[in-house]
């Protein structure tokens, strides 16, 4: 498969969120602000790319029976690096993301890509696949966050867009709206596809 195809497949055609319904837990949790979603997305892209690369690099040596333990160990290490980096250099963002950075470890997308792709392909391809899946995930987060922040806070990336006349929708700030938004998004994207056949 060509490098470009690997990317588009994992980012769009087989998008982890709207095609495979993976990683929705964090997609629901951090999407009330655009900035948080972007940082979360970047963290996931970093972890996916490097864990894919590392797992693929040692895939010949990983004993089959304990491969999940090894994958989790590698994924967790990269996530902790992201967490430490944010704590040291972007403490404000780290504070507002709270425990969700650490919870990237349990994000099913990463484990899913490790199992489905990195364990069977060469390191560079695995890295591209990881970046693709991460970009697809970030895209979903940003789409949901766009609506939630705009209606919930009247701003985008913390910059006020709607004036004082705007009555902020509390529901958009809280978790339930994320469920609605995600469901609507999946519905809109998948309906034409199902019509086609």
């Amino acid at each position, binding site marked *: 498969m060509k490098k470009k195809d690997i990317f588009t497949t994992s980012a769009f055609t087989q998008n982890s969120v709207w095609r495979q319904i993976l990683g929705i837990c964090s997609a629901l949790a951090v999407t*009330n*602000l655009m900035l948080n979603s972007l940082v979360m997305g970047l963290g996931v892209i970093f972890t996916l790319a490097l864990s894919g690369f590392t797992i693929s690099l*040692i895939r010949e*040596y*990983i*004993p089959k*029976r*304990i491969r999940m*333990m*090894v994958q989790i*160990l*590698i994924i967790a*290490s990269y996530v*902790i*690096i992201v967490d*430490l*980096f944010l*704590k*040291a*250099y972007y*403490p404000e963002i780290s504070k*507002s993301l*709270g425990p969700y950075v650490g919870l990237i470890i349990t994000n099913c997308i990463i484990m899913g890509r490790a199992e489905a792709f990195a364990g069977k392909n060469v390191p560079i391809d695995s890295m591209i696949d990881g970046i693709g899946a991460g970009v697809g995930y970030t895209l979903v987060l940003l789409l949901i966050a766009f609506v939630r922040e705009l209606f*919930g*806070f009247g701003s985008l990336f913390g910059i006020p867009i709607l004036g004082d006349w705007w009555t*902020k929708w*509390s529901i958009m*700030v*809280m978790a339930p709206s994320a469920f609605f938004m995600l469901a609507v998004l999946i519905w809109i994207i998948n309906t034409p596809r199902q019509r086609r056949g």
Partner: protein
Amino acid sequence: MANEKKLFRETRTYPVVFMIIITIIFIGILATFYQLSFAKVQKYRETQLKKMVMSVFELPTQNIEIDFAKYITIFETEDLMYYESRTDSILLGYCFPISGSGLWGTIHALLAVTPDFKKVMNIEIVDQNETPGLGGRITENWFKNQFKGKTLINNNVLNNFVLIPENETAKDNEINQITGATASSKALVDMIYQDIEKYNLKLRANL
């Protein structure tokens, strides 16, 4: 040679050895990163706290290290810790770290009071995990500034603030609560009452 290696990889010990080695490698990498970032994280926390102590006394925060040393003295006894602020040997007030449980986690705050304990100077939230946009609004200025100048102790009785709806006019013993976040507003008012009573009793005995 190749044959022997293949044999070892098929033994039961191979996964154990593999796991031990890979754990050591990754823990090593993490420990290095932790060591590299630890000082920076710690420094940031200290500076943030110092800035907050300075801001509750409405003192300048530009040269935080110099100014903090100049104006603030930290008192620490066995069971209580507080900050005292002086300018040109005039006592400005005391600042107490207070804490209590909010809706999702512990809220840590700083409360500054006048030297006679009678009035609240300022309140600052150090750490909270309340719902963003709802309880999280306890960090907003309009909410914190309400406490400024409120009577804390009246005729030796500690004032317990009463919560009233967000858009009503508050009297001296009242605080406008955050709409949709009664629990967080209540938590803050409660922790002021409980912790200041504790400090009040102990400090009065000591001073």
